[in-house]
């Protein structure tokens, strides 16, 4: 579970970077880029917080 949370939180961080890259390359329009960045950011906060709390709960 911890690995899954770690991988998905890192993926959401990568998505935060992919969104402006796609906008820069002209693949995404500006509004979509900003929305994608916001959603990926929320994903990062949710997943990374769960990842960090999971590690603390399991540690002695």
């Amino acid at each position, binding site marked *: 579970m911890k690995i899954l949370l770690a991988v998905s939180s890192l993926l959401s961080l990568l998505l935060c*970077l992919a969104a402006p890259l796609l*906008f820069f390359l002209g693949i995404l329009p500006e509004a979509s880029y900003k929305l994608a960045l916001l959603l990926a950011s929320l994903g990062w906060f949710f997943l*990374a917080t769960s990842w960090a709390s999971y590690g603390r709960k399991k540690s002695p």
Partner: protein
Amino acid sequence: MASGLAKFTSAMDRLYEFDREPVSLDKLQSGGKFAGLFAGEHVAATEFVIGAFFVLHGVSARELLLGLFLGNLLAVLSWAFICAPIALRTRLTLYWYLRKIAGPGVTFIYNIANAFLYCVLAGAMISVSATAVGLLFGIKVPALDAVLPTSAGWVAIVFVLGAAFTAMAILGFEKLSRFAEICSPWIFIVFVAGALAMLPKLGVGRDLANFWQVATTKIWNGVAAGGQEKFGFWHILFFAWFCNLAMHVGLSDMAIFRYARKWTYGFYTAFGMYPGHMLAWICSGIMVAAVGRQMDPGLMAFEAAGAAGIGAVLLAGWTTANPTLYRAGLALQTVTPNWPRWKITLLAGGATTVLACFPVFFLKLLDYVAIYGLVLMPIGAIVFTEHWIFPLLKIERYRAEARGWTFNWAVLAVWLGTLAACFLLPIHLFFKWLPGWFIAAGSYTLLMGLEGRRRGTK
């Protein structure tokens, strides 16, 4: 007076009691932990302002890249060759090592100075966050030459943010510190994302072929904005070097490096310097150029990254003001020995919020950072001299501790004298600290050598 000071210093000692003993070998940390710590520590709200100011000060692209590369290298070397070796040999915090050298009275004054400087720094971070919230309510950011609060709306936002940051610092410093660890990689990504998204607005093509041409003509074009001083290579190099002067040359980071296995862990600071103090500054420069060189971090971030940008400015201010408020509170606790931690944090937060209302602290952030480092630098020079130079010259060390001095007057005289000399030096503020360091080291060696000879203790 003497008994009052004794009361304060004993309270101060109790406060720092937990790190009075040198760190034991079983508590030492791995290099990876240091890399992670530094990587997360140097992406703050102020990065939105610093990189943008370099553009307004008319730095050219070549000067910026070279200045930042070399200045950050000098900062890393200062941590590795000045701060880390002393921390490893003593395994003490600066507080306890300075106490042996300067006596509890000087350490007390140092703490108060530190508390005030921390409050101003946290105030600047609140101001930066206020630009993001102000944008939502249509409140204009003060003009570049503003000193006093410019509108009731600005004051109201600063007070609301200051109250919120202080309340959260009181309620859960530990939890917020853990939250800050989650925020820092994301804030860094928002810097990169914002800069990348602003490139098309500046005319950079998808193949990046004209990037250098845009960088040299539209971003760092060497033309200073109206009323701003022109900066060159040396300004940038020195700024990047002294940006954390209190931490490396000023030795505050002994508190961190006393846990290091090797002095070479000082080089791990590069993980904080190059992403935070090079890449993030470059990114904020790109963002400010794309919004017509307006010094408005909230607007910059919103235009570049939308709601996530606003969140980044707010969170960067919040997560970095929090430990700064905590440190200010810790330092202030020495003058209010019987107060609980919440009351001290409330006092520090209140003072910080009032300071944050004055836009001059964030609009003159570059000068403030220079002054902050300069004020604390002589103490670092004194400790360095006592640690390394005195044994070479066979001058007795730790006289304050050995003789039970409350004040080592030589330290106080050298500290104040160095600041006076730096003030009078006819050079730019950014460059004053370097000759100042040699003035402090030389005059302290001379004074303590003479004092030793006078007492026949050499």
